[in-house]
């Protein structure tokens, strides 16, 4: 049984305590909601970049470049953005669980709602142009862009495997031109069929064969498309030191 003096002892302890003001709890709730919504926005932005990268991938040319569909998907899947999306979805989940009524919803409902809202806003952000803007901005500023953020660029950065991407900086004659390889920051002399018309400063992708350290024989020449535009802008072909690190070149 309870001690008869329980109430008195309790009152003695409570005497020095104060009721915590309502604003303290409101602030805590706002903090949880604010970070939840912020994470949801970041997750949606990640989704908009994923949507942008997937939409503008060269689905029509993978067979021409000697890859099966599954290995091509595996190679160019935007893992970085998928991880980013998952990371923010986990934060949203924990924020949701910490709201006053978040515990009432089971894991699968929160995850499903989270995915749906991220997709909805992700598509909206994509159509506003955020997906492209983020990809362009990171391409210009982030050093490991082609290796980590947009692996589709890295896929084309394998001269020894017959794939090359870069910008045309000089046309030597109707069968050859000079290309800046944006991944390795290096100049290449490209030999090609005279029927292909090449324009200066045009970002292009090539398949073919590396026949010397700086000579590449092109078989297929394709426009670079929209992906990695920031990277092309960063290494626009001017003031380029062949084979050297060009971190300072804009």
């Amino acid at each position, binding site marked *: 049984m309870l001690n008869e003096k329980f*109430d008195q002892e309790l009152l003695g302890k409570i005497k020095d305590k104060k009721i915590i003001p309502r604003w303290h709890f409101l602030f805590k709730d706002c903090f949880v909601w604010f970070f939840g919504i912020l994470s949801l926005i970041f997750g949606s932005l990640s989704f908009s970049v994923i949507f942008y990268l997937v939409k503008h991938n060269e689905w029509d040319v993978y067979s021409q470049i000697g890859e099966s569909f599954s290995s091509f998907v595996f190679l160019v899947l935007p893992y970085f953005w998928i991880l980013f999306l998952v990371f923010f979805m986990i934060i949203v989940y924990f924020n949701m669980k910490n709201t006053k009524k978040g515990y009432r919803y089971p894991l699968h409902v929160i995850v499903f709602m989270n995915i749906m809202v991220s997709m909805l806003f992700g598509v909206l952000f994509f159509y506003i142009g955020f997906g492209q803007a983020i990809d362009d901005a990171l391409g210009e500023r982030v050093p490991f862009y082609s290796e980590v953020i947009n692996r589709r660029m890295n896929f084309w950065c394998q001269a020894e495997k017959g794939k090359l991407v870069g910008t045309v900086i000089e046309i030597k004659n109707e069968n050859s031109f000079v290309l800046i390889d944006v991944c390795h920051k290096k100049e290449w002399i490209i030999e090609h069929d005279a029927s292909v018309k090449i324009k200066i400063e045009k970002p292009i992708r090539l398949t073919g064969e590396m026949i010397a350290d700086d000579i590449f024989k092109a078989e297929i020449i394709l426009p670079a498309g929209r992906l990695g535009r920031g990277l092309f802008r960063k290494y626009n072909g001017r003031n380029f030191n062949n084979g050297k690190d060009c971190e300072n070149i804009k």
Partner: protein
Amino acid sequence: MLSIEDLNKKTDNEIVELVLENSGYFLHIVERYKFKLFVYIRRISNMSAEDAEDILQDVFIKVYQNLNDFDNDLKFSSWIYRITHNTVIDNFRKLKARPQIFDLDMDDDRIKVLANEFDIEKEIDEKQFKEVLNKVLSKLDVKFKEVIILKFLEEKDYKEISDIIKIPQGTVASRISKAKKLLKKELENIEI
């Protein structure tokens, strides 16, 4: 100050409003809940009466300090049970121990209800059933024990249990169902 009769007519939520205006009414909340919570603490832990009393004091201090956090969408009883549950769990975390069933402290009617609920096939009298249930419950995982105690001993419905333990109602239902199966299996295997 309102008279005891007037206070007794008021709901928990109305009393909370009164306490927020005048903290002197807090003792009325204590009077309403101290015995229920004391029994609940003893049921979900193996604490002595003295330790349970200390926990109960902590519970009421937390309730008092956090009254502004009480959400009117909840039943006050769910909220105060939640604080009690969390305080007991926190205490065990501090001691790095696990809560154990001490004594189910059931009256005969409750024992009959539980015996029917578990649909025991063996012939077993109520005293034996209580002993066996104590033994079997102590073997169960805490997450199953707590729902069984809240459902069958504290007589809380699924929504209240969900609000107390902060898990979805579907999870409450599945835990109760699994706990009942485990208990029934254990009860049937036990030597009587």
